[in-house]
């Protein structure tokens, strides 16, 4: 009996060993760009050739460029705020590219690379950050909910959605993205309880980027984040989040398990937020430069570039093509952002109810009368 063994353990070391089982750390391409073999995940990516990896590389370079451009646009007064994903490209691209078109995504506000992989126009992604719209796209068109600002709330939405899929007998899976800090929130814990109880087809994809704004992950959890899932009876995978191939493999495994009635999986993608929490944050105030330097050596893009260069599939002209694509997307994003128009003030009433509602009609009429009180030359109520 395990319990009896624990209680009557001979030494403290024995207790520690029995209580904390170090989770394995799955990796396929290491930080130097060396391709390792022997990970349990190997079989899940046997179809991915080196040439096939070029597409992942391009995605990552492009989303980093999107991120840089959006950060610049914020500094230039074109966006109110922007949450950079610098350093988390592999975790987002690897997982997003594993999804089927009919799977549904419930993300936080930092998963802009996931949105890009989902085919959502970059300009649409910017809309809420420019304050011209409450959300940027139709969730059902892309099967990706609009970003959730409330930390962890989207895990409940995903679990609920997955339960619905289960009732329908669908093989669609819900995936939810959240951070290390969110695992300390009640919402996430409730979602894990329900997902486990009902064996809901949901994948909990945690990007452990080491910082919950200014709180380091070590302050929040004395065990690896993935081990929290075990307490709910949910199997976990701890994967190198800066290794796009390993992330793809882990997500494929989890999706397969959910699709085939195996219930939820918790993935901890170990990565690093190399930038600020948002453009309103200054990480130099709370974290050491040495830590950032150490993680720079594990940069997901540099690592893949090294691997692809060494294996000969990424040439200079190939790199140029990738860079050109990134520059084109950045230019499209900048022009699209600046051209975004202020919404009609009355449009705020448009999407509250699907059908006409007398209270809203009344409020709309009153607001319209109020707006009419401004003369034409003056800014209307929609002006910031």
């Amino acid at each position, binding site marked *: 009996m395990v319990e009896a063994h624990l209680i009557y353990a001979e030494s403290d070391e024995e207790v520690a060993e029995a209580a904390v089982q170090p989770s394995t750390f799955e990796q396929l391409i290491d930080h130097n760009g060396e391709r390792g073999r022997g990970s349990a995940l190997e079989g899940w990516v046997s179809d991915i050739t080196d040439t096939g990896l070029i597409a992942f590389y391009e995605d990552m370079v492009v989303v980093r460029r999107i991120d840089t451009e959006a950060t610049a646009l914020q500094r*230039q*007064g074109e966006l109110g705020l922007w949450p950079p994903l610098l350093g988390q490209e592999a975790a987002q691209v690897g997982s997003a590219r594993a999804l089927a078109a009919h799977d549904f995504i419930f993300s936080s506000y930092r998963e802009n690379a996931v949105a890009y992989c989902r085919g959502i126009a970059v300009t649409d992604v910017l809309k809420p950050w420019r304050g011209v719209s409450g959300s940027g796209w139709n969730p059902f068109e892309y099967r990706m909910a609009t970003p959730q600002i409330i930390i962890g709330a989207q895990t409940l939405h995903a679990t609920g959605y997955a339960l619905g899929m289960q009732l329908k007998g669908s093989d669609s899976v819900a995936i939810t993205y959240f951070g290390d800090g969110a695992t300390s929130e009640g919402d996430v814990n409730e979602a894990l309880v329900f997902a486990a109880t009902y064996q809901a087809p949901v994948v909990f994809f945690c990007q452990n980027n080491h910082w919950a704004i200014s709180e380091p992950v070590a302050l929040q959890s004395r065990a690896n984040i993935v081990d929290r899932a075990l307490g709910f009876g949910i199997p976990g995978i701890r994967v190198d989040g800066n290794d796009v191939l390993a992330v793809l493999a882990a997500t494929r495994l989890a999706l397969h398990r959910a699709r085939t009635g195996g219930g939820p999986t918790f993935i901890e993608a170990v990565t690093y937020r190399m930038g600020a929490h948002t453009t309103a*944050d*200054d990480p130099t105030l709370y974290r050491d430069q040495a830590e950032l330097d150490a993680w720079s050596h594990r940069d997901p893009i540099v690592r893949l570039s090294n691997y692809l260069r060494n294996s000969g599939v990424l040439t200079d002209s190939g790199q140029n093509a990738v860079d050109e694509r990134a520059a084109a997307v950045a230019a499209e994003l900048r*022009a699209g952002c600046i051209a975004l128009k202020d919404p009609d003030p009355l449009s705020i009433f448009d999407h509250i109810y699907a059908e006409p509602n007398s209270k809203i009609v009344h409020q709309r009429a009153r607001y319209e009368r109020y707006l009419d009180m401004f*003369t034409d030359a003056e800014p209307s109520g929609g002006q910031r």
Partner: protein
Amino acid sequence: MVTADFLLPDLGEGLTESEIVAWRVAVGDRVELNQIIADVETAKAIVELPSPRAGIIERLYVSEGVTVNVGEPIVAFEVEAEAEVESVSEPADGLLPSEEAPPPNLVGYGAAVEPRSRLARRARTFNTEQKPSEALPLAGSTVRARATPPVRTLAKSAGVDLSMVNGTGRLGQITRADVEQAKQKAENDVARARTAMPTSTDHVRIPVKGVRKLTAEAMVRSAFTAPHVTIFTTVDVTRTTKLLSRAATTAPFRNVRLTFLAALARAVCIALEQHPEVNSRWDDATESVLQFDHVNLGIAAATPRGLIVPNIELADQLDLKHLASALSELVHVAREGKTMPSVLTGGTFTISNIGVFGVDSGTPILNDGQAAILALGVISPRPWEHKGRIRLREITTLSLSFDHRVLDGEQGAQFLMSVARLLNEPGIAFTAR
């Protein structure tokens, strides 16, 4: 080539200002889009500012170390006119050619500061130049004038100060018509003023700096922190003037300029010894009164550079002769403009001789940090009751201002009367101590 200003955006969330820590470019530099042009410090972080466009730096509006309000221009670019058209369909937010009105969407400029510089500036000019004199501010002007937001917007763009407008609407609400009327009136007033005064040079603006500025600051600080009370007494000082003229001919005073001010200084030192509570100051930090055990006697001196108040250290230790020498030395040095800063601080009581300008009395403002100041009016022969008859006597008026936090009227009056009695009958000094 056209010029495009770049306005400081809100670099965080809801910030109103930022400091330009360093420029990474200079006027004339050619910059690329997103090239870092400056380091800017907000209340939250130091951030790098990427250039919003490619072009040539035409002007840096602010120097390093200066704090700028969100929405104010910080840099001007010289850009190709076509580039403007091809890159964006309409003027980029925050990159307005200087003379154009801002486009509607200014996401990053959402904080309190108004970026609509043209309208706002005009509004300010209106307010300062011609407050309608007959319109009275609303009773108890802490009450905000009642008006709806659209009317406030109208007033703002018309440069009308709502607190100066009488509302004719329901419950005194200011209506659109009220604002338009106020604007019309203001415009008429300006027009009238212009015709009445064809030359615009109705005043000369003199920049305030140096001593004038320091005096202004010290006076404001004193006048608005210490509750001032001024009391007066008119006194017959004939005996003192006679004593001084007799003494001046005696050996000890041969090389000394023995003035009435010296006698007053001596009288003040004697009186301060009798009334030490006057030789003190209010200490804000501890909310207590600091009473000095020595007298550093400040003398207000008019100099070509302005008013200064050097003090005679330990004046209470000096006799009349040494007080007189110290006074003439002090005045001489002050006129030469060579007063050492060290004697401008540490005063405990001040005398101001306004009589030299021919005036009878005044209400002096306390030298900042002291409890009392005495002003000496002009000494002139006037008909005065003397020994039951009317005689021409040497008469002067003394005025004492004191800090009512430190002294009450009784103590102030006792001190002032002690000084007056000494000047009226200098022989009392024999009996002092």
